[in-house]
């Protein structure tokens, strides 16, 4: 049996384990939240190093890639470098490929296209998805500045997003990650409805589940949510707030869709380090692991 642990800066309340069969071998997947405590996450990675087959990094990226430029995230680099023997992955090797493909599938199915109004709560951490939705002809609002700083500063084009990244990411990436992203207990705060109008004006909301949960009002009638890491409790909460359907870019294992870091760690554990996005997708296709799709009206 292979063993994979995702060390997350998120709340431990989302911790869980699953066992997945990948080409005749069982992979045991475990998530351990550290409540936004980077020191604790680093200590845990050191403890796991050499004792598991792969480690995923949750709630933080090692770097962001926007328009061909890479911006290392100080806390992410620190956590990756805490392990010397076991490969540490943040989902980057999969995110771009998998998320683009899901959008292309949605476009082929007629679920997104010209006229679809999309709010991406965070696009700097998933530029591939932002590009794919733009290429599909959707009308975009990128909410990175709005949901990170509370400043009502919508960005509507990839060009402006790239320009924004060049201006702010070299500096912001050096700040403690908890300043930029809801980690730990902040993931469980009551919804903030200051920007509800952006959700009400959208047909589809895409991006990080924690930003979505933090700002989604209870008036999201008919909305589709496109994200990755979700639990049964997230789905119930989305349904209560009026979300009609949920698409997860990662497959669903025993009731939950894990983050891309978990799926990449599973694939690395099975294929060995050095396998890239192409081999990841080949394996996912061979074992028939597909994105998740939920009709939440049924569960309401």
């Amino acid at each position, binding site marked *: 049996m292979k063993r994979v642990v995702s060390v997350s800066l998120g709340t431990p309340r989302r911790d869980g384990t699953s066992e997945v069969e990948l080409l005749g071998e069982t992979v045991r997947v475990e998530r351990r939240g550290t409540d936004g405590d980077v020191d604790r996450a680093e200590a845990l990675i050191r403890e796991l190093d050499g004792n598991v087959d792969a480690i995923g990094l949750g709630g933080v990226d090692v770097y962001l890639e926007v328009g061909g430029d890479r911006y290392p995230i100080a806390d992410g680099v620190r956590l990756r470098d805490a392990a010397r023997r076991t490969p540490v992955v943040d989902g980057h090797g999969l995110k771009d490929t998998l998320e683009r493909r899901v959008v292309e599938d949605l476009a082929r199915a007629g679920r997104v296209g010209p006229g679809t109004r999309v709010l991406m709560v965070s696009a700097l951490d998933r530029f591939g998805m932002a590009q794919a939705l733009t290429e599909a002809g959707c009308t975009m609002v990128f909410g990175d500045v709005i949901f990170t700083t509370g400043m009502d*500063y919508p960005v509507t084009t990839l060009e402006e997003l790239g320009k924004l990244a060049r201006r702010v990411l070299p500096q912001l990436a*050096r700040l403690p990650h908890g300043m930029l992203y809801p980690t730990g207990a902040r993931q469980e705060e009551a919804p903030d409805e200051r920007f509800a109008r952006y959700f009400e004006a959208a047909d589809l909301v895409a991006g990080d589940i924690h930003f979505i949960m933090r700002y989604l009002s209870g008036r999201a009638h008919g909305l589709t949510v496109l994200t990755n890491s979700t639990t049964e409790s997230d789905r119930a909460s989305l349904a209560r707030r009026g979300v009609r359907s949920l698409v997860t870019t990662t497959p669903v294992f025993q009731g939950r869709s894990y983050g891309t870091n978990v799926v990449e760690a599973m694939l690395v554990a099975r294929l060995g380090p050095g396998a890239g996005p192409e081999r990841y997708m080949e394996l996912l296709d061979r074992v028939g692991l597909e994105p998740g799709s939920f009709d939440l009206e049924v569960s309401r």
Partner: protein
Amino acid sequence: MTLIESLDAFASRFNANERLRQMNRDWNRTIAIDVEGEPRCALVLEDGHMRVEPGAPSARDIALGAAEPVLVDIFGGELGPTEPYLDGRLTVQGSQEDVLRLDFLSMLIWGE
């Protein structure tokens, strides 16, 4: 450049940017500027307009403290706020969201 001149330059760039003014019209804040621990002046944001007020402000939402040359460099666009914040030359007090918003403003005003 003096501290007041650099703050004036910062406020002028903010006020000349219609989009930034619009986006911050509901963000009324007093940003106290402390030099070596002594209140020196404040940046006051009110209804999308920024002004510099000499002297100690009567109330403060955010407080920035540093040696005068560091503050001059930050508000004059010579130095981003992140580096002196991380190495301890700049202290920042305020809500996390306000601090990050001010950081963004500075980068949007002086970036590139």
